[in-house]
């Protein structure tokens, strides 16, 4: 085949989480054909998770931005224009705004998914050219508490461990991280290590019983937000028991006495009460930590996304310092990053308060160093706005021109009502984005198409400080450009307007030039990577910083000499007290809402939301509650409810989930307004933030739920042109109280819509919907009972269902969907397609229909059936293939085996 002859393989990295796995991209000149794990990459040794392994299935061209689009009037839709006039226009508006209102009237909001070179270009643009510190990144939502935590305690924002330490450790504490979902490949490594050394102890601290708990020796389901109390309580016991490294404390730390006094009050009785766990559990946890030869902790958003995020980080690091568990194999506080290059962002100074090379924007010496290097007079002194503050100032009108790159604040920030108001009111919004389908794009006055995974060239740093060279396999589609390139081209245009006659600061034609200019700024800093180059990365593979000039290899572990990056070289104990989360339950809001990840989706789903297969595990937004809560509220599984917080409300189905404690609720963070009408999950979450890290408390809001009466229901499914139809249909569903969009299927992907309303919509709206579903033609099976506002349509192609729409009466939706997925219809069956048959659905509950193993497309029902025949895990793997590829589904399969079919 000619196609096979042209196939090449390019080694690059995965664009999802911070594990930073290496991928081998199989591609032709213009098309990515397949993806596999890179056996040579030290992060994953060839493994990939369900998301990484399906990268080649994502990125539907219909969702991509292909040409710049501009609108001069907010009431109009943007229309296509050429790059030159697009950027000319942007430069004019920015220059005018800066001239009229000062440099702080413009802002840049960028992303942990950018490459290091992109970051660097944006930083230079904001701080050196525009002269503002108003550049913040979505890393503010995920890592800024860890940044402050590391810096306060250890002196630098540097995770001291390597992934290998995870395998070497004797005791691992996983706090506020469902790494089985969020960092699956590292979790696989941990699973395997524990299988090899069963004596290894794993403690999971999480209010929910997640898949991560499957390998836990101890699960502490603490009450949400009580982590500081827990860590202080553990330290209290460590002190009591003498499980401390007194020498380490004496020689390498400061502030232990103050901390000791602080934790005095955190005795086991009160800590057990605060945290909602037993004293025995607390004791067991302290003992595992205190007696472990090596102790390592992993954490993520459960600690960071909190008004006490910094305190939580510090309290956890305290445990390592008190026990001397840092700077040695299998030990250390190891923060997991959520984004592929959140680390790179921190390194290049892509938070408002930072400067390149782990410098501080508030530090005049640092400013002078960077200004000197860049050849500008000075860098701005005024503190920049962090994400929450930034959007608040956009809303208040102080920020008048906003440049957003590679992130989707209209989905990801808390309190979406205000964010949408802000974006709608901002005089000039530029969105630089690979996917023009995101919620934020709707607010863009100028939309700039960016290149994306597989098309980009540059560097990323993963959670273990490892820098990988990201290589492009194919060219970006149409006129899409690399993010650094867009930033630089814009900068050059802006220069001529606000810095005329001076030599350009942005004479970059290749990303490598940006990297080389940037790396010199790290020289002599804790993260010194001045010894790295594209050539070294290409020759020796990914490297961990520090990698100073002349180094032969990277640094696997920091602080082995116990000299810390603080002024006096000693680590600093932090003695903060425990503060409860900002919002507490009361009579009006009786539940605590936690948000988090799904196994097969990532962030705002701009990429994963283009692959139908990734919706097989969880199809749509559902609020999970303990079954006692459902019983108490007389709610049924699957019933639609209105969930409300102080800021907004959403209509979603509820589902019983006894992995959540009563009094709590869980809603995945991924669902934005595109997928779930009503601005998505974050319409509920709160913008209150940690005063030091400015990271918002996305994982803790009080809510309550009310019954809703939405008797008129709607269900539709349509194959083909998914993204186009999605974009066209979604606005029509603003008129419905509830509307949930999703993708479904694997071989024949389809768009699926579920909606509900108090009464039927008008016929004209339904007719418009039908046109977009392509079921308005004569050759469609139709059932209509206008009096009851019932209308059903099924479109067949050679006996296969290719589109269907049920309105007013949807009881056959699950049955029809199974017909769509599996069956050819014949005359006999066709007779029943429009009938209100719900039985087939009830037989196999919707849970049974979900795809458990995405790699091999094995449903939960199939696995349950096989378990019923007496198969064990190995037989299941052998016979069904499930769990043999990425392994993400293995914890769930194990649970099914353990549950002895009770759910089947």
């Amino acid at each position: 085949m000619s196609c096979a002859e042209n196939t090449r393989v390019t080694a690059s990295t995965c664009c999802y989480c911070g594990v930073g796995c290496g991928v081998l991209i199989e591609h032709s000149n213009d098309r990515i054909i397949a993806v596999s794990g890179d056996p040579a990459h030290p992060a994953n040794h060839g493994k990939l998770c369900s998301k990484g392994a399906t990268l080649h299935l994502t990125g539907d061209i219909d969702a991509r931005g292909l040409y710049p689009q501009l609108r001069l009037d907010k009431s109009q839709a943007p229309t296509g224009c050429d790059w030159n006039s697009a950027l000319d226009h942007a430069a004019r508006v920015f220059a005018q705004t800066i001239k009229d209102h000062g440099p702080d009237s413009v802002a840049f909001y960028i992303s942990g998914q950018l490459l290091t070179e992109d970051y660097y270009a944006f930083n230079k643009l904001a701080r050196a050219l525009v002269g503002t510190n108003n550049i913040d990144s979505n890393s503010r939502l995920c890592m800024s508490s860890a940044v402050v935590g590391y810096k306060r305690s250890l002196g630098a924002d540097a995770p001291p461990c390597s992934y290998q330490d995870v395998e070497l450790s004797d005791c691992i504490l996983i706090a506020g991280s469902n790494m089985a979902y969020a960092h699956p490949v590292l979790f696989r490594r941990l699973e395997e290590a524990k299988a090899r050394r069963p004596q290894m102890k794993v403690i999971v601290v999480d209010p929910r019983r997640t898949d991560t708990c499957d390998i836990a020796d101890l699960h502490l389901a603490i009450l949400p937000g009580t982590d500081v109390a827990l860590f202080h309580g553990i330290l209290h016991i460590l002190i009591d028991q003498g499980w401390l490294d007194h020498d380490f404390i004496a020689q390498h730390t400061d502030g232990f006495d103050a901390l000791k006094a602080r934790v005095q009050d955190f005795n086991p009785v009160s800590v057990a009460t605060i945290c909602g766990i037993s004293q025995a559990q607390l004791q067991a946890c302290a003992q595992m930590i205190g007696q472990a030869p090596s102790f390592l902790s992993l954490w993520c958003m459960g600690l960071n996304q909190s008004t006490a995020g910094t305190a939580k980080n510090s309290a956890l690091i305290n445990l390592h310092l008190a026990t001397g568990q840092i700077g040695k194999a299998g030990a250390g506080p190891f923060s997991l990053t959520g984004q592929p290059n959140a680390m790179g962002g921190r390194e290049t100074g892509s938070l408002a308060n930072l400067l390149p090379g782990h410098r501080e924007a508030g530090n005049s010496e640092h400013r002078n160093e960077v200004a000197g290097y860049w050849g500008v007079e000075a860098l701005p002194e005024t503190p920049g706005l962090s994400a929450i503050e930034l959007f608040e100032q956009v809303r208040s009108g102080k920020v008048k021109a906003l440049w957003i790159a590679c992130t989707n604040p209209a989905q990801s920030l808390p309190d979406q009502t205000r964010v949408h108001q802000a974006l709608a009111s901002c005089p000039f919004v530029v969105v630089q984005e690979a996917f023009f389908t995101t919620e934020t794009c709707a607010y863009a006055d100028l939309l700039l198409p960016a290149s994306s995974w597989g098309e980009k060239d540059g560097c990323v740093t993963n959670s273990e400080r490892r820098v990988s060279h990201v290589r492009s396999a194919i060219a970006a589609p149409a006129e899409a450009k690399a993010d650094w390139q867009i930033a630089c081209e814009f900068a050059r245009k802006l220069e001529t307007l606000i810095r005329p006659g001076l030599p350009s600061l942005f004479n970059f034609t290749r990303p490598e030039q940006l990297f080389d200019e940037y790396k010199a700024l790290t020289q002599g800093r804790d993260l010194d990577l001045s010894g790295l180059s594209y050539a070294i990365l290409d020759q020796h593979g990914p490297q961990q910083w520090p990698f100073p000039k002349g180094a032969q290899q990277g640094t696997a572990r920091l602080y082995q000499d116990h000299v810390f990056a603080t002024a006096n070289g000693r680590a600093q104990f932090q003695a903060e007290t425990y503060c409860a989360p900002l919002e507490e339950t009361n009579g009006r809001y009786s539940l605590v809402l936690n948000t988090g990840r799904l196994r097969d989706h990532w962030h705002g789903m701009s990429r994963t939301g283009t692959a139908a297969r990734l919706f097989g595990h969880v199809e749509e937004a559902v609020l999970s509650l303990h079954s006692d809560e459902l019983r108490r509220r007389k709610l049924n599984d699957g019933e639609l409810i209105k969930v409300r917080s102080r800021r907004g409300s959403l209509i979603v189905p509820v589902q019983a989930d006894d992995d959540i404690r009563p009094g709590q609720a869980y809603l995945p963070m991924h669902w934005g307004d595109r997928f779930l009408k009503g601005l998505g999950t974050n319409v509920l979450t709160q913008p209150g933030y940690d005063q030091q890290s400015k990271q918002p408390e996305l994982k803790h809001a009080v809510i309550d739920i009310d019954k809703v009466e939405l008797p008129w229901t709607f269900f539709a499914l349509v194959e083909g042109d998914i993204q186009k139809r999605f974009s066209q249909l979604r606005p029509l569903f603003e008129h419905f109280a509830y509307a949930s969009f999703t993708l479904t299927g694997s071989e024949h992907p389809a768009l699926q819509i579920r909606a509900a309303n108090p009464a039927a919509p008008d016929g004209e709206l339904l007719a418009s919907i039908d046109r977009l579903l392509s079921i308005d033609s004569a050759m469609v099976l139709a059932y209509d009972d206008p009096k009851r506002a019932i209308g059903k349509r099924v479109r067949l192609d050679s006996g296969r269902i290719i589109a269907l729409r049920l309105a007013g009466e949807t009881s056959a939706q699950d049955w029809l969907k199974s017909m769509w997925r599996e069956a050819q219809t014949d005359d006999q069956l066709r007779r029943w397609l429009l009938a209100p048959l719900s039985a087939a659905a009830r037989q196999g509950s919707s849970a049974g229909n979900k795809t458990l193993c995405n790699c091999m497309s094995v449903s939960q029902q199939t696995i349950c059936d096989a378990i019923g025949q007496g198969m064990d895990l190995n037989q299941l793997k052998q016979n069904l293939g499930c769990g043999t590829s990425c392994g993400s589904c293995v914890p769930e399969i194990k649970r099914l085996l353990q549950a002895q079919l009770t759910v089947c």
Partner: protein
Amino acid sequence: MKKLKLVMIGNGMAGVRTLEELIKLSPELYDITVFGAEPHPNYNRILLSPVLAGEQTFDDILLNDHSWYADNNIKLLLGRKVTQINRRQRLVTADDGSTAEYDRLLIATGSTPFMLPIPGNSLEGVIGYRDIADTQVMMDTAKTHSHAVVIGGGLLGLEAAHGLKLRGMDVTVVHIGETLLERQLDSTAGKLLQKSLEERGLKFMLPKQTAELLDNGQGRVCAVKFTGGDIIAADLVVMAAGIRPNTRLAEASGIACNRGILVNDTLQTFDPRVYAIGECANHRGTAYGLVAPLFEQAKVCANHLAQLGYSRYQGSVTSTKLKVTGIDLFSAGEFIGGEGTETITLSDPIGGIYKKLVIRDDVLVGACLYGDTADGGWYFRQIREQHNISQTRDHLMFGENAIEAVGPQGQDQTANMPGNAQVWSDNSVYQYKIGTAIQAAGLEHNHELR
């Protein structure tokens, strides 16, 4: 005891059925005399179309042979047309001069095709479609001529057209309405039917009004001319543009008529000795053209003739079926819908199926089925029995099987519906059952009245 004398004028299906019912009830009460204008004993007029289509023979459709009349002591006078009723003398006279006295008279003269009052309507080759003779003309003409035009897109016209097509003629159906079978189908079903018949080679001109039938110069029709002036060739013109009840005889004897002989609920005219039944009778404003109501009338009429009198006829809900092999259509009741009614429709263009149910005040009052008439009989029963369907409404369209699965209160018990072999076998049994039910009901042409 001396027997009463019963005379029946007309030897068709409705009348003979009355005699059969009467003999069952009271075989010895009457001396019976029957006058028949046709030279044949009672045959099944409904099945003339299958005869024309070549699917049956005249012998196949005979209902009562000569020996039946003899066995029941019925005096059968064939080929004799009654010309006068003398109610004072209680005497009828036929065209051959033969007479018969009566104590009770049963008029069952049926109807005649309506021949359009246009020039050329009496030319050779211009016929109605009513009896064996007409059928024979068509069969003979098909052997010698090629162009047939059927005027009227009702049941009878379409059956004639279909039969002529099968016999090799080039057939054009001319219809004055917008769609075919307007009395039986709504326009959606009518169009489906037209499409299906077109696929079988029939041509349609509609809406179209015939102005004149043209002479070939030898007294035979050669073409049809329309009001617009256009002309098509025609060697045979079949008028199927409705029927007229045969009331002339009754009218002449002073019996009240108005689009049929007016009868009461015991099928008696104002003269209580004189009964009228079938297509010639007008009961509560309706002259029925379908056989099922006529058989209901026969039962009541016989009951009264037998001097029992406890039975009353209160009108019928009618249903129709087109006897064109491979085309299933069914309609019953108020299938058009209208004020105060709600409709539920289902359409399956792949299967060529269209169904419409009409509901008023939670009762099924009409049904129109095209392509899949398996549930026709069941709907017909629902309409007649006036069941409240509010609990089963969403399942109603899917027929008896679905309702049984749902249960009377609408609770869903469809645990093993489609995909389950047992259901399918049940279903096929059911279809068979309905098929026979329709035949048993013996649905006949709707001979429209104008």
